[in-house]
């Protein structure tokens, strides 16, 4: 599965630094697809599960019009892009707001609102906004809005995003040009600006609503959120002022809130909805090999892990943590908990092939009970110890992993007591590092920085393992401020090798999700990062 995640972007940044010339052409905007040739990867699973439709997009001319009803897993909560944080909210706001850059299905950054950018030096970015970009109320997207939005993400009292803290100042060059001045080189910037969690917000709209954007939305995205009734449905209509010509194709979308897997199955079968997504293979089984349905199996970046508190007790000894990693067989986790649908992953999710080093190059990933017992003996714990593993029953995978881990670690005399906490309590424990071990699923990040610096740097506010290692800190700082892609790639390889000696987390696998579609709906290009930017290109075959 050749994947060059972020490759376009990285090449862009890389070459830009070297040649200082414009790379992106304004003409790329407005078409149905950006320059994806050569980078486009069709997920082999997709083709494997349902071979009848391996490359659906290019074959026919899209027809505008029609409506989609889809089953949706949950209620969005906060719709204010500055403060929202749930995956579900982001899926909704993504349809309404637009980002400066946008990920394609290989997670390479592509131009979006920003059609052109220059990097005169390592701490300066100059963005040019599309001439015709406008919000759904007809007002243009200006450099003023970009400045307002990015400053909002930086403001600790508003967005408070960790990545935005590197922005020193923002200068308005002209109505469509804006300059970012960073306080240090920061390679991940474009990745974060491509993330659908960080869209551009209209300053005028924000001020008109006195900042209360929790329930009202207005952006430059393809759809307008017309109505949201909790526990019932979310209704979108086409944005008539959408600046990308001809898009979206659908006139209307209604996402019916159906949290129960079996309920979504029944709604699909009953013809009530034409699309629904599933995290579990069980409900999907009857749709596979069924000509009435198109099933997409998508590998995601969501990774299953056990957090280890590295600050006290036997677990503070890195040899003990290494022993645990040596003692477990990750394939068994994948095969039982995730029923075999996914792939074993290291410290950076395996589908990010450009950054993640293959798991067979990570020493502790090679199951070796003798080595594990040796390490336990060296650490003085040959007789093992007792430890509590906290987990929430909300996610089947977390409790399943806990049971497999408990079983496997008995081999090195580590006795795990599983303690289930209600989800809110578990988050409380996680955020406050109030655990010995804790299972949680982690979402994909827009950049390797998100998987490493944020989690393990000793000064990171989100270092839940309480790990502190000067060598690791130095590596992490260097990697985030290195702009050269190859150099950065090799630095992250070092980071991962270093992490494999420290083993702050036991990572198991990334798992697959399933999208079930009525095959008359074309233009679906599944994303690995739990987002659906392709909705604007979905159309109905007559």
């Amino acid at each position, binding site marked *: 599965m050749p994947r060059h995640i972020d490759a376009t972007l990285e090449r862009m940044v890389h070459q830009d630094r070297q040649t200082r010339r414009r790379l992106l052409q304004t003409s790329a905007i407005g078409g149905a697809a950006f320059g994806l040739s050569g980078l486009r990867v069709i997920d082999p699973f997709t083709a494997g599960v349902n071979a009848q439709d391996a490359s659906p997009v290019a074959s026919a001319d899209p027809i505008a019009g029609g409506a989609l009803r889809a089953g949706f897993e949950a209620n969005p909560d906060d719709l204010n892009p500055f403060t929202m944080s749930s995956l579900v909210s982001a899926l909704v706001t993504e349809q309404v707001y637009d980002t400066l850059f946008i990920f394609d299905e290989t997670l390479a950054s592509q131009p979006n609102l920003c059609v052109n950018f220059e990097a005169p030096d390592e701490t300066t970015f100059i963005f040019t906004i599309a001439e015709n970009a406008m919000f759904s109320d007809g007002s243009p997207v200006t450099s003023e809005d970009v400045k307002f939005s990015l400053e909002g993400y930086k403001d600790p009292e508003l*967005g408070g995003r960790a990545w935005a803290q590197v922005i020193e100042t923002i200068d308005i060059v002209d109505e469509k040009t804006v300059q970012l001045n960073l306080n240090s080189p920061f390679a991940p910037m474009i990745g974060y600006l491509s993330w659908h969690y960080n869209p551009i917000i209209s300053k005028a709209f924000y001020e008109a609503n006195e900042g209360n954007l929790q329930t009202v939305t207005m952006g430059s995205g393809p759809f307008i959120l017309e109505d949201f009734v909790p526990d019932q449905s979310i209704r979108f209509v086409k944005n008539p002022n959408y600046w990308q010509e001809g898009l979206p194709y659908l006139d209307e979308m209604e996402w019916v809130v159906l949290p129960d897997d079996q309920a979504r199955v029944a709604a699909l079968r009953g013809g009530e909805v034409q699309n629904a997504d599933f995290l579990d293979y069980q409900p999907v089984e009857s749709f596979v090999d069924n000509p009435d349905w198109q099933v997409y199996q998508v590998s995601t970046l969501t990774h299953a892990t056990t957090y280890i508190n590295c600050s006290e007790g036997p677990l503070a000894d890195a040899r003990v943590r290494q022993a645990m990693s040596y003692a477990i067989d990750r394939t068994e986790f994948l095969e039982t908990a995730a029923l075999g649908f996914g792939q074993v992953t290291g410290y950076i999710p395996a589908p990010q092939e450009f950054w993640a080093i293959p798991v067979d190059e990570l020493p502790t990933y090679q199951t070796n009970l003798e080595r594990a017992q040796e390490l336990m003996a060296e650490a003085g714990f040959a007789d093992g110890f007792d430890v509590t593993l906290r987990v929430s029953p909300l996610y089947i995978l977390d409790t399943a992993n806990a049971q497999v881990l408990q079983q496997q670690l008995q081999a090195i005399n580590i006795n795990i007591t599983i303690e289930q906490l*209600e989800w809110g309590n578990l988050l409380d424990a996680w955020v406050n590092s109030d655990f010995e071990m804790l299972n949680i699923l982690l979402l994909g990040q827009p950049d390797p920085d998100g998987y490493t610096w944020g989690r393990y740097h000793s000064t990171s506010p989100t270092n839940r393992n309480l790990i502190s290692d000067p060598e690791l800190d130095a590596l992490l700082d260097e990697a985030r401020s290195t702009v050269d892609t190859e150099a950065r790639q090799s630095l992250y390889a070092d980071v991962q090798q270093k992490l494999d000696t420290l083993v702050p987390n036991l990572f198991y696998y990334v798992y697959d999700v399933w999208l079930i579609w009525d095959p008359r709906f074309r233009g679906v290009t599944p994303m690995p990062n739990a987002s659906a930017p392709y909705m604007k290109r979905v159309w109905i075959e007559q």
Partner: protein
Amino acid sequence: MIPTLIGVSLIVFFSIRFIPGDIVLVLSGARSDVTEEQRDQLRRNLGLDKPLPVQYVEWVGNAVQGDLGNSLKTQRSIATDIRSRMPVTIQLAIMAALVGLFVGIPAGVIAALRRGTRTELAAQGVALVGLSVPDFWLGTMFLLVASRYFAWYPGAQYVSIFDDVGKNLSIFILPALAVGISLSASLMRITRSALLDVMGSGYIVTARSKGLREAVVLRRHAFKNALIPIITVVGLQLGYLLGGVVIVETVFNLPGVGRYTVQAISDRDYPVVQATVLLITILVLFISLFVDILYAYVDPRIKYGSARSS
């Protein structure tokens, strides 16, 4: 009634805050790029930083004026949300109770009258299934069987009975059956037992010896006297149903109060939990009042007052 409400308001107010975690944490939990300062700011915006007694007094003060406030999560008016959800819960409760009554009571009567026969065995068998299969399981089974083998789906979206009676009933029939069958089991058991008690008593013997037909004996004498425990159980179950049958509501996508409350508990959406619990308390109090009145109606011997004074 007022002291009960004050008691409930205090308990719900403090117990929900006693549980670890708050809304800010729940909403931003899985994000690693949200800083602690941002969380504190959100808490200030939501007024969660004020001292608890102040928050309590503010809430009660507003509530007695009919202002239940807004959800912390969605900023929507709680009163509006509850107004739209209450009819769903009430309809499901009533329909399920009807199913329970129509299945449970006849089954109980048959089981009592045909004691030791195959008919009793069959009635007991139905009750047994109702008791050992949870309502959500039964509901899911109905849904899957209907969609898979009959290509029938009751509809993903709730329609008010005032808008479209047919569609509304088709949406409610499966969940009402699932919940009702579970209910009928306990009703059947209690009816059988209550009837057996009564059938052995002197006045039934008298009635029979007067030459009254068995049906008349049953209807006029036995059944009426067996009603007290049955009414109690129905009252209890209505109370339980008004609290919401969460998983069934979820499976059938019914926007009821149960889902609303449970979601609010897991979101730590304090004002929503407080409002719904208070409302359910009021309803339960009315039901128990009603049950007490019914007691006196079906059994004229019951007089309220202390034992000594009677």
